[in-house]
């Protein structure tokens, strides 16, 4: 049976992990490679690296980081943040990433999704969608949630699928950081509307939240950052719990 995926997300700035804390058995939680290796040992199913570096100059360090990560870990990983062109994707994939995620750049120029899919295959393109419930509707936001767009979330999800995305990473901004659980309603609406896998993101605070999103929606993965970084929910414990709840995990 296909397993539900547990996916830690690492925010990267200038080649360093943001928001990490020191685990007892790793020297430097700010070192993305150390942290990534720790997650692989713990049984993470995939990793997402989100580059939040502001300057173009420091972006070069991202490619070096991807190369180093690829040499050290043997599970799939996605790299996102500031990818605007096929040329950007080429560098990241050549360095050893399995997938790239695109967000604001795809809203600005939807053809980017098709261009990446044509060159590297659909499985390589993750459409990251940040969504917020406002005035009775789930709408798409860009630029880290700062910029509103007129796009309806379900309609945009269908469009990215048609454009060639292989997967959707859906983050509810209403839930992100609240630790009150994933946004079940929009996650289910989106995952029913498309036939590509959907990863739920934003709001995980307890192990029960993962159970809820896997039982109540067709999402095939759950992504979280701080609860894993701060050791609030160790991945082995989460997986043991989900197994007792009859949810298929690795």
């Amino acid at each position, binding site marked *: 049976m*296909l397993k539900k995926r547990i996916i830690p997300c690492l925010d990267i700035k200038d080649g360093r992990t943001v928001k990490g804390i020191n685990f007892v058995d790793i020297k430097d939680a700010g070192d993305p490679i150390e942290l990534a290796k720790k997650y*692989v040992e713990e049984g993470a199913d995939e990793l997402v690296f989100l580059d939040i570096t502001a300057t173009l100059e420091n972006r070069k360090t991202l490619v070096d980081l991807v190369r180093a990560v690829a*040499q050290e870990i*043997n599970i799939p990983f996605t790299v996102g943040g500031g990818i605007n062109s096929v040329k950007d994707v080429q560098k990241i994939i050549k360095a*050893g990433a*399995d997938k790239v995620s695109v967000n604001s750049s795809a809203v600005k120029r939807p053809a980017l999704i098709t261009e990446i899919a044509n060159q590297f*295959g659909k499985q390589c393109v993750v459409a990251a969608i940040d969504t917020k419930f406002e005035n009775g509707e789930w709408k798409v936001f860009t630029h880290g949630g700062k910029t509103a767009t007129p796009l309806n979330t379900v309609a945009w999800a269908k469009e990215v699928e048609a454009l060639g995305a292989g997967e959707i990473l859906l983050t509810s901004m209403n839930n992100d950081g609240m630790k009150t659980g994933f946004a079940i309603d929009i996650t289910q609406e989106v995952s029913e509307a498309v036939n590509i896998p959907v990863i739920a993101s934003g709001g995980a605070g307890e192990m029960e939240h993962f159970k809820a999103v896997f039982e109540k929606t067709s999402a095939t993965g759950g992504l979280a950052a701080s609860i894993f970084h701060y050791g609030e929910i160790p991945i082995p414990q989460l997986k043991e719990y989900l197994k007792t709840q009859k949810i298929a995990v690795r």
Partner: protein
Amino acid sequence: MIAIIKYNAGNIQSVQNALTNLGYESVITDDHATILAAEKVIFPGVGEASSAMQYLKEKGLNEVLTAIKQPFLGICLGLQLMCKSSEEGSTECLGIFDTEVKQFPPTDKVPHMGWNNSTQLEGSLFLNINLEDSFYYVHSYFAEVCENTISVCDYIEPFSAALHKNNFYATQFHPEKSADIGMKLLKNFLKL
């Protein structure tokens, strides 16, 4: 020396990284003589079938690959290209395995993406690997079960998770991305 076939497909570096971590020297190459002289050959790949086959033909690799006598491992698209034909781009493939590659019907999420276990596995490639163990898959096309099938995975319908004929082995999943279990399988292959 292990030869990793160089062609217009992604994910080749990951295979080399895995081999390096296991302590094996490898070279990514499309040179006929190097490939034919290698101890073992790995044929990786993520990509599209018809353009990959076209590339192999342009480089004359289609004839080299089928002539190889040493242990040979195809991965993902590599497996599909070793079959008779693929529905992806209506492609005539290498014809090593007596089966056809079909597209998944849209009755569940496609691509089949993530970790899945086998419902059946046999042979030395799976030494010390069990039915509970999961491998990482990402594919929208699958090889039908046939007499060369040595492992079956069930997603939408049962398909060939691995195939074997003479010196030719292939896996639909990515051992190089399947953590410890994947490394175990690669070691089993490298010891053949």
